[in-house]
């Protein structure tokens, strides 16, 4: 039954081939053709003044002519029923947000950094710097190991960091292995780490 019905539609879509289709129910096909022929002729005419009414309703201002295709794409609404300008604006905001997050992520990516300080006779070594607002008590180094080194590994964001070691809770010392340093304003020097 379904196959016969499909053949009728095939015959309607390909009138030239329909004559060669032996398996089409010719009575049903004729019934379809009669209805569709009437549909094709059932064109209702609009009022005579429709043209004048349309022309009268056109805005006086000329249609907007936006020179660049990209700008045109952003600003000109398409023919779809929804609000494409809003959809496009939302899409642009989402893309910008995604790009910002990627940039921010790269910028804020925290890298592991190991600090080593040689002090075989010390009983405590701490790390202070711009990354912990020079506050003692937050980053303690472990040690000493067999070589007399105190070690800690922390995660730091990319950028420039100044730091010092506090030995035995009283002595503030620069890192002798630091490649860069600058005066701390108290007669000493801050070590500088750039990552």
């Amino acid at each position: 039954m379904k196959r016969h019905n499909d053949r009728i539609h095939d015959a309607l879509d390909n009138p030239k081939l329909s004559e060669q289709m032996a398996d089409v129910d010719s009575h049903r096909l004729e019934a379809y053709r009669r209805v569709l022929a009437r549909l094709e002729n059932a064109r209702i005419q609009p009022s005579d003044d429709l043209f004048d009414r349309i022309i009268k309703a056109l805005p006086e201002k000329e249609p907007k002519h936006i020179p660049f295709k990209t700008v045109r794409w952003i600003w000109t609404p398409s023919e779809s029923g929804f609000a494409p300008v809003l959809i496009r604006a939302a899409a642009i905001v989402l893309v910008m947000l995604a790009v910002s997050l990627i940039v921010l992520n790269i910028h804020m990516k925290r890298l592991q950094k190991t600090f080593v300080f040689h002090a075989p006779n010390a009983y405590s070594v701490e790390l202070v710097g711009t990354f912990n607002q020079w506050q003692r008590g937050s980053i303690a180094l472990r040690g000493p190991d067999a070589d007399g080194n105190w070690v800690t590994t922390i995660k730091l964001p990319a950028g420039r960091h100044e730091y010092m070691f506090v030995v035995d809770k009283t002595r503030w010392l620069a890192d002798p292995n630091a490649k860069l340093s600058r005066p701390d304003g108290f007669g000493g020097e801050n070590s500088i780490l750039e990552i």
Partner: protein
Amino acid sequence: MTFFTATVYNIVTIKYADMSDGALAERALNGDKKGFEELVRRYQRAVFGLAYHMTSNVADAEDLTQEAFVTAYRRLDSFDMDRSFRNWIITICANLTKNTFRSRIRRKKTEESYLLQREIQESGKKKENHGDLLTALAALSPKLRAPLVLKHVEGCAYEEIARILNIGISAAKMRVKRGRDELVKLMESQHTTNEI
């Protein structure tokens, strides 16, 4: 002298009727409103035809036709000059029709039914009597009616129907097929004799 005047007249007079849709749209964009007038003249019947079969109401269909052309005029800059203006304006009309259906749902059913019957009777009187056909067509869901009208009244190809209604080609074919089946079924149920 007359020959000379006629020649000059022919050179100076712009023959809008001979121009392509793209050229007319371009002229309209450059401030020549007559270019757009020619586009209205060419396609107002096609747009009205779709609008009428979708709304079953002459007044609504004429309002939609007017709105479609005004929208097209405002958005003319987004029209791709290489594409068919007919398909573009019909797409605009199809989308406006969807919105009309949404607002119509809010109307009272009795008023809707009264208006539909009155319009069908009036249009039936105008020329040939298509009252039974229009009643059957109006009974189809808009989802099936739109592709059926585009195919069999506007003569669109399945690819064009798909583009206009923003659906796939296979969906367009399926809807036309179901539309035909339902229309024939409704027509047959209206007529007890074989005379459709």
